[in-house]
Structure formats: structure tokens, C-alpha cells
């Protein structure tokens, strides 16, 4: 010792200590695990499900990591990583608990979203049927189709456990579903409105009574059922399938609206040769139609230049399509009807015969499904 000198010896020892002491410490495994857990929480969208707990976890992790970094700056023999390692191990356990809680929340959300998707599917199917029933494809099918595609997307996202994206798609689809329903609602509700049903019922009753009184024929057309009934002496003789206007379920307002009028009419003229096989011209517009037309015009509900229209017929040509407002039958049915009825025969056209019509049922189902 004396040979090399005490001073030199202690310098060597100090050098050795500095060499070892300045070595960068290894990253504690708990720090890596805590980082991995944070990543797992992020991937599980913990920010969405448990935002406060997740943010608190991140803040605590950042604090401990900062403390760890500061501790690592110290010399080896002064360094004590144990408190940080302990805290990091606690954070890993906390992350596991958070992940379990997130999973529970995800399952709850998944269940809710699947249920919402099912309800929306029923709604869209029903809306599609109602749209077809009312022949209002042009105003609602865009929304229904778009909503169906978004619903399919939402289902795929649900299958991939991407609940946030699934909910976004589902919400958009639900909004479109509501948009699709709006234009149909006004039309649909006419067929369950008690006032309308009572008025239509009274017209039909009066028509049948007239047929009974005179012993003659009478025609009743139900737009919602697309059926034309023939009465003789107050009793139903026969009935045929019928087609109505493209906007047949709306009440006729103006010329060219392609709606079928509702009211009590009479056959004005029999046309044995018509563009649509044979035709029975009815006396639309009648006095009531004119009064209503003028009233609606006065109230600004009808454009000032609009006409009331006319040339409404019961004609042949088939029931496969839609007319411009007339009532169409299959040609054999038209042959029979044409041979039975004469000019002056009452023709009553109503929206529905009673409250138990197909729209009422569909609306009821729709509301029950909701």
C-alpha cells in the first residue's frame, strides 16, 4: 500500500466507483410493463369508457416515470429505485383493474349497440314496407338505403369490437331512419285518423244505402286495400284488385299531382275504346272538390296558377303499376265491370274502409317495435 501511495490507491478506488456509479441503470421491468399496460388501455379505448380513471392513471404514470428518470441521474450508490418500482408495480395492478372495468363497460355497450342495431333493422324493414305500401320510394328510399348501408357498417364494426365507430355509424343510420319516416308520417296518419275514417265510413254507408234503395249498382274503391268493390241492391256482388295513382295515397289537390281523388262521384261517361282498354269517366271534380280546391287556394295551400285537374277514370290496363290518378283494373275485370254498370252509377273512393287497415297494422307494429 505504501509502495503505490495512499493517495493513488484512493484515487483508483474512486475511479472504479465512478465507473460503476455512472453506469446508466437498466430500465426497471415494471416501467416497461406499465407502459405496455398504458398502451393496452389506449387500444381498449379506456379514454371513452373510463375517462377520469384513465387520465388519472396516465398522470400518475407520468409522475412516477419523471421521478424514476430523476433518480436514475444520481450516482449508483446513492440511487434507490425501489419506491418507483413499487409504485410502477401498483400502477400495473391498477391498469389491470381498469382493463377489467373497461371490458365490462365494453360488454354493456356492445349489448346496447347490438340491441339498437336489431331495433333499427326492424324499423328500416318496416319503413321499407311502408314506403312500398304507400309507393313513396322516391322520398324515403334514399334515406332507407343509406341507413341500411350504415347499419351494415355498424354491424361489421361491432363484429370487430370497435364500439365507438359502431355507435357513430349506428347514430347516423338512426338519424336517417327518422328522416325516412318523416315524409311518410303525414301520409300514414291519414289512414288511422278517426275523422277521416268516420267520413270515409259515412260515404261508403250512404253509397251502399243508395244501392239498396234503388236496387242498382254502386262502386266503392278502397285506396289502401287497392280493391274495387261492386255492390248491387246494397249487397256486395264482387270485388277486383285495383291500381291507383303514383301519389294515390295522398288526397288529390291539383292537376298533375298524380293523386287519386277521394269522394262520392258518379260515372259520367262509358268509353268502350280507350287507351287503357275500356274506361269509365267519373265526375271529378265534383262540387265538394271545387269548394275544397278554392278554399285551399284562398289559404295559399295551392299555387295560384294550379288547376283542379280532371279526366279521372276507372280503366283497364292492369294493376301491376301505378296510374296518373285513375283507378286501373285488369282487362278481364274491366270487361265485367263495364258490362255491369251504366252512366250515373255511384263511385265512392275512400282512403280506407275501416280502422283495421294495413297502414294501421303496420303503424301499430312499428310503434310496438319501438
Amino acid at each position, binding site marked *: 500500500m505504501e509502495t503505490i501511495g495512499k493517495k493513488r490507491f484512493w484515487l483508483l478506488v474512486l475511479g472504479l466507483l465512478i465507473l460503476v456509479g455512472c453506469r446508466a441503470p437498466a430500465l426497471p421491468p415494471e416501467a*416497461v410493463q406499465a407502459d405496455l399496460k398504458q398502451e393496452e388501455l389506449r387500444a381498449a379505448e379506456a379514454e371513452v369508457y373510463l375517462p377520469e380513471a384513465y387520465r388519472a392513471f396516465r398522470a400518475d404514470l407520468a409522475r412516477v416515470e419523471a421521478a424514476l428518470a430523476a433518480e436514475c441521474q444520481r450516482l449508483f450508490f446513492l440511487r434507490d429505485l425501489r419506491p418507483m418500482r413499487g409504485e410502477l408495480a401498483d400502477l400495473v395492478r391498477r391498469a389491470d383493474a381498469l382493463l377489467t372495468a373497461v371490458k365490462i363497460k365494453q360488454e354493456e355497450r356492445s349489448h346496447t349497440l347490438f340491441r339498437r342495431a336489431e331495433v333499427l333493422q326492424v324499423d328500416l324493414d318496416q319503413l321499407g314496407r311502408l314506403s312500398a305500401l304507400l309507393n313513396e320510394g322516391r322520398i324515403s328510399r334514399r334515406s332507407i338505403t343509406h341507413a341500411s348501408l350504415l347499419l351494415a357498417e355498424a354491424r361489421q364494426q361491432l363484429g*370487430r369490437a370497435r364500439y365507438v365507430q359502431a355507435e357513430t355509424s349506428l347514430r347516423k343510420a338512426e338519424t336517417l331512419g327518422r328522416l325516412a319516416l318523416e315524409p311518410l308520417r303525414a301520409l300514414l296518419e291519414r289512414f288511422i285518423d278517426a275523422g277521416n275514417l268516420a267520413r270515409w265510413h259515412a260515404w261508403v254507408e250512404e253509397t251502399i244505402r243508395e244501392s239498396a234503395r234503388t236496387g242498382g249498382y254502386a262502386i266503392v274503391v278502397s285506396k289502401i286495400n287497392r280493391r274495387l268493390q261492386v255492390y248491387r241492391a246494397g249487397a256486395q256482388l264482387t270485388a277486383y284488385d285495383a291500381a291507383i295513382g303514383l301519389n294515390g295515397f295522398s288526397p288529390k289537390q291539383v292537376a298533375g299531382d298524380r293523386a287519386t281523388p277521394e269522394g262520392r262521384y258518379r260515372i259520367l261517361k262509358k268509353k268502350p275504346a280507350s287507351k287503357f282498354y275500356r274506361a269509365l269517366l267519373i265526375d271529378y271534380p265534383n262540387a265538394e272538390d271545387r269548394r275544397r280546391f278554392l278554399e285551399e287556394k284562398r289559404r295559399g295551400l295551392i299555387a295560384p296558377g294550379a288547376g283542379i285537374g280532371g279526366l279521372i277514370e276507372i280503366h283497364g290496363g292492369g294493376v301491376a303499376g301505378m296510374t296518373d290518378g285513375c283507378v286501373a283494373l285488369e282487362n278481364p275485370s274491366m270487361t265485367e265491370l263495364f258490362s255491369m254498370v251504366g252512366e250515373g252509377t255511384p263511385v265512392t273512393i275512400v282512403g280506407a274502409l275501416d280502422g283495421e287497415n294495413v297502414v294501421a297494422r303496420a303503424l301499430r307494429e312499428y310503434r310496438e317495435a319501438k
Partner: protein
Amino acid sequence: MRKVWSFLAVSVLVAFALTGCGSQPGQEMQTAKAAVDAVVADGGEKFAPAETKGVASALNAAMEEVKTQDGKFFKNYDKAKEMLAKAKSDADTLKAGLAAKKEQAKGEATANLSAASEAVKAAKDALSKAPKGKGAAADIEAMKGDLQGMEAALAEVQPLIDGQDYAAARDKAAGIKSKADEVSAAVAAAMEKMDAAKPGKKK
């Protein structure tokens, strides 16, 4: 003199034994962690979720092994080093393959978008040639509505591609194509029916 040098040599050996052979595989831990982080940063969760989870789990298992050895008096990190090397190698392999996976997913989404656009265009063309009789007007209008809905949905596909949500874009475009094909088929069937109904035509 000799004694002193022997003492110093032993000290150095002991110090290295304590801090070297039995020390944590810090470097390996750092590189394995960096490799896993790189996979995540490159969108591993999106394009290879199961594999990404796998490499993260492997890294976590290696950390457990490090902790186990940390708790022992005679530490042996050989197994941990092997595990870390494997985790790193798997992560590197995964990362190297991610670009191809991403390209493939993007290619599929883009191809499906293109096919869906073509299908919608074809359906619109078919509809414009559909019989215009008043009987068919309602159906045509309804199908036009369908096509408008499809076009609206089609506009949502490109943003999904731009946001690298290729799987969603691919499936959405496929759904649109399928619906557009249905419209084309319905129009073709209607036209066929009309042709067959024409007098003098054989059914």
C-alpha cells in the same frame, strides 16, 4: 505491491460480477421495447391486431422473467435475454410485414371502392334505359332513391380510406356494390319480362 494489485483486481472482478454478469439485460429490454413500440406506431393494432398483441404479451412475459431474476440472490438473466431477443425479433418481423399488410388492405379497399362506383354507375345506366311506362314509374323512382342512398354512402368510403380504416372501407364498398348489383339485376329482370311479354316474342 503484488498484494495491492491483487486486491484491486479482485475488487474489479467482484464489481463486474455484481454489475455485469448478474445485471439486468437493460440494453435488450430497451431494444425489445422500442421494437414493440415501433409496431404500434406503424399501425400494428389496425393491420395485425392479434400479432401486435402477441409481441406485447411476449415482452410482458420477458419482463416478468426479469422481475423473477431480480428477486433472486444468484441472478441469471439468460432466459430473460432469450425471451427479449425473441420478442424483439418477432416485433421486427411483424413491423417489416406491416407495410405489405397495410398496402394489401389499402389495395382491397381501393379496389372495392372502384368496383362499387362502377356498380352504381352501371345500375344508373341500366335504370336510365328501363321501360318508362307509367306502370314502372314508381319502381324506377324507388330505385333512383336507392341509388341516391348508395351514392351518399359511396362518398363516405374515401374518407375511411384516407383515415387508413381500410377494413371498414372495404366492407362498406362491398355492401354498396352488392346493393347496386341488386338494382341492376332488378332492372334487367323487368326488361326481360317486358321483352317476353311483347307479342310475337317466344318466351
